[in-house]
């Protein structure tokens, strides 16, 4: 019986694995998602090329449809400082289910159409040192 219980136990290495994953997740979040910015741009990329860059502001609404030569179509809705993909003719609809994007760094991806809608802030240079404390 004792032997059986031993099988269901966590070992020290397991916690290290979890800690490493959390560190990695936290590190990427801090680096990519938490960018303090006053002005936010909505960037639409297709096949790795930026198609449009729209500055977002309160009260500004717009709907635009991105269509490529293969008939792939995504409709992007802008409502103030939030953006979403409202319609798409892709099979999985994951981009539509992603919902509203509100913060800089967030993105909605449509893999079948190779399309990314992404919010970017003004401060894009992460390499600069903000403050030096000794």
């Amino acid at each position, binding site marked *: 019986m004792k032997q059986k219980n031993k099988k269901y136990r966590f070992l020290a290495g397991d916690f290290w694995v979890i800690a490493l994953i959390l560190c990695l997740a936290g590190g990427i979040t801090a680096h990519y998602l938490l960018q303090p910015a006053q002005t936010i741009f909505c960037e639409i990329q297709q096949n790795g090329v930026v198609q449009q860059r729209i500055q977002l502001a309160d009260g500004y609404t717009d709907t635009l449809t991105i269509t490529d030569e293969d008939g792939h179509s995504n409709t992007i809705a802008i409502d103030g400082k939030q953006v979403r993909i409202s319609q798409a003719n892709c099979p999985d609809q994951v981009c539509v289910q992603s919902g509203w994007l509100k913060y800089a760094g967030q993105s909605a991806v449509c893999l079948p159409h190779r399309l*990314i809608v992404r919010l970017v802030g003004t401060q894009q240079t992460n390499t600069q040192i903000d403050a030096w404390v000794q």
Partner: protein
Amino acid sequence: MQAKRMTLCAMLTAIALVLSVVEKWIPLTAVIPIPGIKLGLANIITLFALKSMSKKETAVILLARVTMGSLFLGSVTGFIFGICGGFLALGTMALLLRRENQWFSLYGISIAGAAAHNIGQIAAAIFWLGTVDVIGYLPLLLIMAIPMGFLTGLVSTVTFAHLQKIKIL
């Protein structure tokens, strides 16, 4: 012996395929809308094959599973993503299995496998989309890998405890 091993490989491939189909029925993306999020049930088969058979046989099972899986229910994109994620998970789990019961239990190994699968998928997405911006999805996927990996680890642990009573090979 040769025929028996081959049959076992084919059987494991079939089970993995069924698990991928069953997985599709669970509407996980409706709850967590991240492209590529899944339970990773087929990872149980990879872990099982790694433990009871050779790495080569596991790689063959994985390749057959991903190829047939993307033919049945996926697309070309699904194939690229499955290959990248699957083989990174296989490599990571094979590495950690060397220290099984010393440093890691099956929970940790399958959590690491799930995380590696996600990293492989995102790497494939970076090449597919031509930008590194997709990396923004990785933190959520990685955090989700912990409960998903725990679940598959639990299933593997229970399965192995039962299979030790039967002589399968």
